């Protein structure tokens, strides 16, 4: 499906984004025309705006009802009037949910998982797609999403370092209160990583691949039931 999305982005350097020009250049919604090498004269910088697909189309692609999409879009637009959410806004939203700890790292990983093309901003369309995978996707898809959360550099396998960083970020969400007395925070996350690797790394090659990950998680009853906890969100 390629829907023609009228999209104009604001670049990091102030440059004029002439909507007519860009609409000529933009074709598919999945390419990332980040850098307009058209540097027209310095008029006033118009912040880029993103208009999402039509509601019916979005509803069909993501599987949510119209009301649910409306509900989410209103909140999205309130927070990000331009229609695209940046990492800072994302972090601030997460900070409100986890006030005790430092949620910036975890938010960064979630953001980069959602931001497949690594643009630095997530449009509403991407956001809804990600949300539909998380809520309405099959177990396989969700496991893949979870895998990509841990696979920071997107190379298809999770190394110990990657898992350590993500687990540390998750521990940071709790704040200073999470460690048991006598155990250092680094120690706790290292132990955790070790335990995970022992369980998941079946061929003991030091990395966890996608298949290992999915196989293990599909087999494990606890994990499957825990996944079911997040089935219904509204």
């Amino acid at each position, binding site marked *: 499906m390629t829907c023609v999305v009228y999209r104009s982005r604001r670049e990091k350097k102030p440059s004029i984004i002439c909507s007519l020009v860009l609409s000529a250049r933009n074709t598919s919604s999945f390419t990332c025309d980040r850098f307009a090498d058209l540097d027209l004269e310095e008029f006033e910088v118009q912040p880029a705006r993103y208009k999402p697909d039509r509601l019916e189309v979005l509803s069909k692609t993501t599987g949510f009802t119209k009301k649910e999409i409306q509900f989410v879009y209103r909140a999205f637009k309130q927070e990000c009037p331009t229609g695209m959410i940046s990492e800072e806004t994302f972090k601030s939203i997460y900070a409100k949910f986890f006030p005790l700890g430092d949620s910036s790292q975890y938010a960064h990983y979630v953001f980069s998982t959602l931001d497949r093309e690594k643009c630095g901003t997530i449009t509403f369309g991407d956001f809804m797609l990600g949300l539909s995978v998380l809520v309405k996707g099959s177990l396989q898809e969700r496991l893949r999403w979870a895998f990509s959360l841990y696979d920071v550099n997107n190379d298809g396998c999770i190394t110990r370092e990657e898992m350590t960083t993500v687990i540390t970020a998750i521990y940071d969400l709790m704040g200073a209160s999470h460690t048991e007395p006598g155990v250092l925070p680094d120690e706790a996350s290292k132990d955790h990583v070790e335990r995970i690797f022992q369980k998941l790394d079946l061929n003991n090659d030091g990395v966890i691949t996608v298949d290992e990950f999915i196989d*293990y998680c599909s087999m494990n009853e606890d994990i499957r039931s825990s*996944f079911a906890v997040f089935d*219904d969100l509204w």
Partner: protein
Amino acid sequence: MASVAAWLPFARAAAIGWVPIATHPLPPPPISKDRRKSEDEKLLINVSGRRFETWRNTLEKYPDTLLGSNEREFFYDEDSKQYFFDRDPDIFRHILNYYRTGKLHYPKHECLTSYEEELAFFGILSDVIGDCCFEDYKDRKRENSERLMDDKLSENGDNQNLQQLTNIRQKMWRSFENPHTSTSALVFYYVTGFFIAVSVMANVIETVSCGIKPGRSGTLPCGERYKIVFFCLDTACVMIFTAEYLLRLFAAPDRCKFMRSVMSIIDVVAIMPYYIGLGITDNDDVSGAFVTLRVFRVFRIFKFSRHSQGLRILGYTLKSCASELGFLVFSLAMAIIIFATVMFYAEKNVESTNFTSIPAAFWYTIVTMTTLGYGDMVPKTIAGKIVGGVCSLSGVLVIALPVPVIVSNFSRIYHQNQRADKRKAQRKARLARIRIAKASSGAAFVSKKKAAEARLAAQESGLEVDENYREEDIFELQHHHLLRCLEKTTDREFVEMEVPYNGQPKRPGSPSPMASPTHSTASNTGLLQACCGRCCGQRYQVKAIRHDPNFFTDQCAPFLCTYIYLHSFSFFLYSFPHTPHTSDDDDNNIPYTISHVFSSDDRRLITFFN
């Protein structure tokens, strides 16, 4: 937190990332599938006719305000299924925007107090006003509070005038500070002013030449010729000033503070030279010092600042502009030094030059920068002339810069003072107008009461009564019934009294110009007057009403009790149980009646009515 409530589903969905690494199974979700949260609905808010609609979630972002909490249910109108508020819709717009955007803005054209009232009503703290509007808000608030303080001070000042001052000291201090309070204070004020003027004039005339020195060359100043006269004049003035100073010192509530104040220092400096001069003999060694001391006599002119408000404002302005003045002086000093140095070195090699040293060049620089240009020192070299030109141009700039600041400060303070005086003058007129309005409404009340009584009496005597009661009549009826209940409860009744024709407050004991036919019935007038004079303290407020509501008088109580006029439907205040009596005196010539409500303190008031 509710502002990000809509994001929570996403956060929860993203939490599946924790599942693979979870050490324990995750707990089941709190809300079961069946109980779906009701979807967001729109609320209709009607504010004085203007309709606003918003989502419920928007309002619930701030649950500690009126709109965000259950408190709004009190304003819910079942019939129209909306929330109705009888408040200002223009300001409500801003309040609703606060819920929508999270920022509260303060509209510049709105009155501060009305805005604050709305905020208080809706339970929003003024701290959440956004940064863009906060400065303005704070400035307005400060002006407002200053104005309120001014009003309160002036009110206190007025009230103090009514208080009995306990001792001489306080009376004297008050008359020194406010010359308009009593005639003796005014006299004192003008006398001291006169003597200050005389003293200053004497100082000036002393130096005018009156003739030729006998046997010597040069003119003879008047001071030398009429030495005795001037000495006597000086003595008299200094005696008056000394007496004044000592009296002020005696009357001051805080003597140390008084001695440290600017005015008292000026006073001391004004009279000290005389006493020091008395002590010094006409010795050549110290005569130089003696002459210097005489210079200080000119400070007497500053004593005028007690008499002139403009001078005080000027002094206050200079004080408040101290930083700008300091900047001016500093920048001038810098410029002077720079230019003087350059001039000196430029003119150094000229023959017999005036610029003998850098300090000598200071004089030239100052004269040039202030564009005076005396011409006593003039550069001769070309370089010197160029520097001189630059100096005069920059002088204009440097001096012109801080001056507008000082001027605007002066203007602001001056206008503030004007405003304060204007406000005081307006207050009196305003209060008077308010009293008229109250009196006329009081008159309307009394006439309605009388009509009600008439109706009641007609009803009782079996006459036909007009049954067309309008809405307000019923209200009035009930109101009067309530007052009657009160009368029955307290065994007292409301009294009507009368003021004389010209409306002036009458002192007790003085005859009234208006003789009323029933005057004689008040045979206890004397007693009443004496009684009234004694116990009608300052506490109660009396309104004089006339059937023609244009007339009014608003005088405080002590002067008001003259005689009671019995009206056909008049009621009387008794301190002992008494049956209500309605006499049928003709009420044709009752131009004035006062409804007189006594305070509960006036228990000793006894009125007789036969």
